[in-house]
């Protein structure tokens, strides 16, 4: 499985070509990327996102159309934005940013990125804990819960968090191998569980499914106390849930190994398996759960999967949460290690694991996962816009490319100012105009590009202008 090898290379401690372009003899085939994208986007969070669409009252047609369009936009973003820059520069995101903004801004970026990774891994641990708690009859969190309600929940999460952290301390290799083995089985479990769930809704034919999809599963009516989602929410969430990776350019680190810029389009495997099939399947499971537990406000992927797929479903939730939490903790550790290179890896991983476990105690991370994922992408997006503008607009608008590198600086203000001001503008749009979090990324990107171009032109005009 070359995809595992590729991912291992990318997150490996001794990251090769950290500050040099990837040489031609190290480039990977399209098959590697296909497998990696399919595996990475069929994760523990899929057990949460599909049901949340049901809870938010997405209508069936809106869901299918929204997923088709949103995923297509995500694939196009990977293909047209990330792929060309990744294969042209062949640098990691961090080094590319360092060349533009300087080391000190990258450190700030790393710190925020690490924190975001901790929260993301925390939500995965919480997802796993809902399945681990089944045999102990653990009181599960509810849709409106923000804080832990029972000591049992905290104990379950802390045990899961400790185990996952200890494994992460031991290194990435074994978990990567385990995740590699689990990936095909997990994808099938999503599909199997959906098939097993449908008869419980009285569906035994395709025609019956279409009727049930509209009238029972995605009714268009949100659960009490939950906001209503339209097709626009689905499209934009789908497009921007991985915004940090494509528009935010985080996947430069992965796609720099691609033989062709077109490999960015191979993300379709992850989008249409993980973010289409798995989200629809997990939505079906939640509808069955709601039918079997009338008036229940409980929201726990473990019991939901257990009802449809039995022990295999519950195990899948644990495995899916674990195999995604582990590399996420590892990535957070690496991001922090960039700031504190002298500190031992195991100490950093232990600290990251501790923060992650603490965060996982709060069910809000699961219940508000859609908002968190959108916020995560939004916060990191402006730096992707900076890289984009630096790559495409430097010559056109007359400012210096890779300003920090060319001027031998460890800090430059145009990128940092563009980043912070973009987030401020997004906040203004949200606060004063009521534009929801899911939609802020689009205007935010244009704001970030514009601000960076203007600031760069002021501070670092093109050299020939300077010389003249």
């Amino acid at each position, binding site marked *: 499985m070359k995809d595992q090898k590729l991912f291992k290379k990318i997150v490996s401690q001794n990251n090769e070509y950290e500050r040099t372009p990837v040489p031609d003899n190290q480039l990977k085939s399209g098959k590697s990327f296909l497998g990696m994208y399919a595996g990475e986007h069929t994760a523990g969070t899929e057990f949460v996102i599909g049901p949340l669409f049901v809870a938010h009252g997405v209508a069936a047609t809106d869901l299918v159309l929204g997923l088709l369009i949103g995923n297509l936009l995500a694939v196009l973003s990977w293909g047209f934005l990330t792929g060309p820059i990744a294969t042209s520069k062949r640098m990691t995101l961090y080094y590319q940013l360092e060349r533009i903004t300087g080391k000190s801004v990258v450190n700030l970026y790393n710190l925020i990125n690490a924190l975001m990774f901790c929260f993301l891994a925390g939500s995965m641990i919480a997802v796993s804990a809902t399945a681990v708690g089944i045999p102990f009859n653990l009181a599960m969190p509810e849709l409106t819960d923000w804080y832990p309600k029972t000591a049992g929940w905290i104990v379950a999460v802390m045990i899961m968090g400790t185990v996952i952290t200890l494994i992460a301390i031991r290194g990435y290799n074994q978990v990567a191998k385990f995740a590699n*083995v689990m990936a095909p*089985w997990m994808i099938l479990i999503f599909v*199997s569980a959906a*098939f*097993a769930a449908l008869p419980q809704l009285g569906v035994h034919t395709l025609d019956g499914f279409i009727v049930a999809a509209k009238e029972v599963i995605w009714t268009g009516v949100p659960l009490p106390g939950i906001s209503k989602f339209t097709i626009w929410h689905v499209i934009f969430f789908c497009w921007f849930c991985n915004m940090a990776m494509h528009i935010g350019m985080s996947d430069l680190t992965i796609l720099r190994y691609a033989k062709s810029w077109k490999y960015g389009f191979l993300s379709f495997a992850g989008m249409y398996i993980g973010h289409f099939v798995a989200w629809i399947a997990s939505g079906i499971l939640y509808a069955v759960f709601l039918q079997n537990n009338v008036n229940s406000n409980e929201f726990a992927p473990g019991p939901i999967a257990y009802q449809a797929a039995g022990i*295999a*479903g519950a195990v899948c939730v644990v495995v899916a949460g674990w195999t995604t939490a582990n590399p996420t903790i590892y990535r957070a550790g690496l991001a922090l290690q960039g700031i504190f290179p002298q500190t031992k890896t195991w100490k950093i991983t232990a600290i990251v694991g501790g923060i992650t476990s603490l965060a996982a105690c709060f069910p809000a991370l699961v219940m508000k996962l859609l908002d968190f994922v959108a916020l995560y992408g939004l916060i990191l997006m402006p730096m992707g816009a900076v890289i984009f503008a630096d790559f495409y607009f430097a010559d056109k608008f007359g400012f210096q490319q890779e300003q920090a590198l060319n001027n031998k600086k460890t800090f430059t203000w145009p990128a940092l100012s563009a980043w912070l001001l973009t987030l401020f503008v997004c906040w203004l749009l949200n606060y004063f105009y009521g534009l929801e979090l899911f939609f802020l990324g689009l205007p935010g990107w244009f704001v970030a590009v514009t601000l960076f171009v203007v600031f760069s032109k002021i501070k670092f005009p093109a050299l020939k202008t300077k010389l003249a």
Partner: protein
Amino acid sequence: MKTILKIASYIGLVLTIIPPILFFKSYITLDSSHLYMTIGMLIWFGTAPFWINKKTDESSSES
């Protein structure tokens, strides 16, 4: 040996996907479907690591 392990793994996957479809078509009960899926899971867990990762290790050592 690897071929036998591979065949067993694929049987594990078949036991994961086919029983729910049979339940969907009302040929078996939900409990039976759960049981077969659990067996399929155990077979997959017990066989797949021996050939999937072996392939990885081999390809790693090649480079």
